[in-house]
C-alpha cells in the first residue's frame, strides 16, 4: 500500500488570464483525513478539480495513486463530490445511485450501502428535487462512495448541514480512513479543522501551511485553527514573506 495518495508539485492553474493557484506543492497521506481549508475563492475547488483531473490550464505535476491526474486508470478508483450537488433532480436518490453504479459497474449492494452510509434510507425513494439542500448534498456524496473508491475528494461536503449530521459525516470520513481510504475534504469553516488529521491552509492561491492540527497549534501558539490561520497571515504580512 502506498503511503502517499496524492502528490502535487508546483501546481499552477490559470483561469481567465488570472493565476488561481500560484505554485502549490504538498502531499496527501494515504489512509487519513486531510483537510483543505481556506476562505471562499482561495482556490480550494480549483485545486480539487486539478487533482480529479477535470481542470484545464494546469502546469506542474499532480500524481494521484501513482498515476498522472485524470488518467483513465483512476476513473474507477476515485470518488469526487463537487460543491454543487451533481445528481439528477428528477430522479430519486436510489435511481441516481443505480445509474452511477451501472456506469461504474458496481453491484446493487453498493447502492444500498451508499444509501446507508449517508443515512438517507428514509428518503431513498424520494425524487432528489424534493429533498432539502442538506439531503441533496448527501445524495451527491453517496454517489462518490459507490464502488469503493481508494481516494475521496470532497468539496465542502458538510456546508449547510446541521451539527448532528456534520458530526456523523466526519465520523464516516474517519471510518473510511480507518479502512484505508484517503480522504481530502475542503471547507471554509475553520472549526472543522479539528476533525482532520492533517491540514492544508490555502490563501489566495498559495499554500500557507501544511501540518498536523497539533503542529499548527504549537507553531502559532493559537488555541484554535482560525486564530492559527490569522497568526500565519499576520506574520507573513510583517516579515514580508510570500504574498
Amino acid at each position: 500500500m502506498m503511503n502517499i495518495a496524492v502528490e502535487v508539485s508546483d501546481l499552477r492553474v490559470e483561469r481567465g488570464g488570472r493565476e488561481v493557484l500560484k505554485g502549490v506543492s504538498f502531499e496527501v497521506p494515504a489512509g487519513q483525513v486531510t483537510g483543505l481549508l481556506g476562505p471562499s475563492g482561495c482556490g480550494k475547488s480549483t485545486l480539487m478539480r486539478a487533482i480529479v483531473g477535470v481542470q484545464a490550464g494546469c502546469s506542474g505535476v499532480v500524481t494521484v495513486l501513482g498515476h498522472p491526474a485524470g488518467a483513465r486508470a483512476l476513473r474507477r478508483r476515485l470518488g469526487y463530490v463537487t460543491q454543487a450537488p451533481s445528481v439528477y433532480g428528477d430522479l430519486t436518490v436510489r435511481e441516481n445511485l443505480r445509474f452511477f453504479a451501472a456506469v461504474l459497474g458496481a453491484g446493487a449492494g453498493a447502492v444500498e450501502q451508499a444509501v446507508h452510509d449517508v443515512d438517507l434510507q428514509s428518503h431513498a425513494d424520494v425524487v432528489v428535487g424534493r429533498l432539502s439542500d442538506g439531503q441533496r448534498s448527501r445524495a451527491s456524496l453517496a454517489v462518490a462512495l459507490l464502488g469503493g473508491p481508494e481516494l475521496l475528494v470532497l468539496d465542502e461536503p458538510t456546508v449547510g448541514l446541521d451539527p448532528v449530521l456534520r458530526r456523523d459525516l466526519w465520523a464516516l470520513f474517519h471510518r473510511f480512513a480507518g479502512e484505508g481510504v484517503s480522504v481530502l475534504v475542503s471547507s471554509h469553516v475553520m472549526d472543522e479543522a479539528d476533525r482532520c488529521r492533517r491540514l492544508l491552509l490555502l490563501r489566495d492561491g498559495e499554500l500557507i501551511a501544511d501540518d498536523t492540527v497539533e503542529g499548527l497549534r504549537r507553531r502559532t501558539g493559537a488555541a484554535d485553527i482560525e486564530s492559527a490561520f490569522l497568526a500565519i497571515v499576520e506574520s507573513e504580512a510583517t516579515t514580508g514573506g510570500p504574498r
Partner: protein
Amino acid sequence: MSPRVTLAVAARVLTQLRRDHRTLALMLLVPCLLLTLLWWMFDGDDTVFNRFGPPMLALFPFTVMFLVTSVTTLRERTTGTLERLLAMPTGKGDLLVGYMVAFGLVALLQAALAVGVTVGLLGLAVDGPVGVLVVVAVLDAALGTALGLFVSAFAATEFQAVQFMPALVVPQILLCGLFVPRPALPPVLEAVSDVLPLSYAVEAMQEVQSRAGVTLDLGLDLLVVMAFAASSLALGAATLRRRTA
C-alpha cells in the same frame, strides 16, 4: 465505449422523461394535434393536405428532439453531472449514443402516433410503404438529437439553448421545400437548401408519399440525413471535454 454504460445512460434518460408527464404528453400529442389542425384548415381540400402533410411529419421529430436534447444536455453540463460522469469510466460515445437511443425510442413512439393519425384517421395519401414514413421520422429525430447535442455546447443557459431553435431550425423549415418547392427558389437559396439536412428529410417523406416501393432516391436522401446526424454527433463529441476551465 461500453454497452453497459451506453444502456445505463439511455435507461436513465428514459426514466427522467417518464417522470416528466407533461413533457412526454407534449412530445407525443402536440404533433398529432397540429397535423389535425392542418387537415381541418384545408377542410375537404385533400391536395393541400397531401402537399403539406409529409413535410410536417419530417419537421416534428426534428424540431422536438432538437429542443429536448439541447436543453437536457445543457442541464447536464450546468448541474455538474456531466463533469462527474466524465470523471467516471464513461466514454463520450456512451453519453452521445445513450441519448440517441433514448430519444430515438421516444421518436419512434411519436412518429408511430403521428403517422397513424395522418394516414389512418385523416386520410393522407401515401403510395409507398407507410412503415417507411416512421423510419424516416426516426432518422429525422436522430438528426435533431445530434444537432441539439452539438448546439448545447454553445449555450450557457436554457434561454440561449431555446433561442438556437429560430436561429438554426426555422431557416431550414423555410428552405426545405415546404413553402416553395426547392427548384423554384432563387438560385442562391436553392444552393443553401442543398446543404441543409432538413431538405433531404422532407424530400424523403415526399418520396415515400409519391412512389410505390423503396426507391434509390429515398435511399440517397436517408443516407444524407444519416451522414449529417453522424457528423453533428462527431462535432458534439468534440465539445465534451473532460478538462474544463
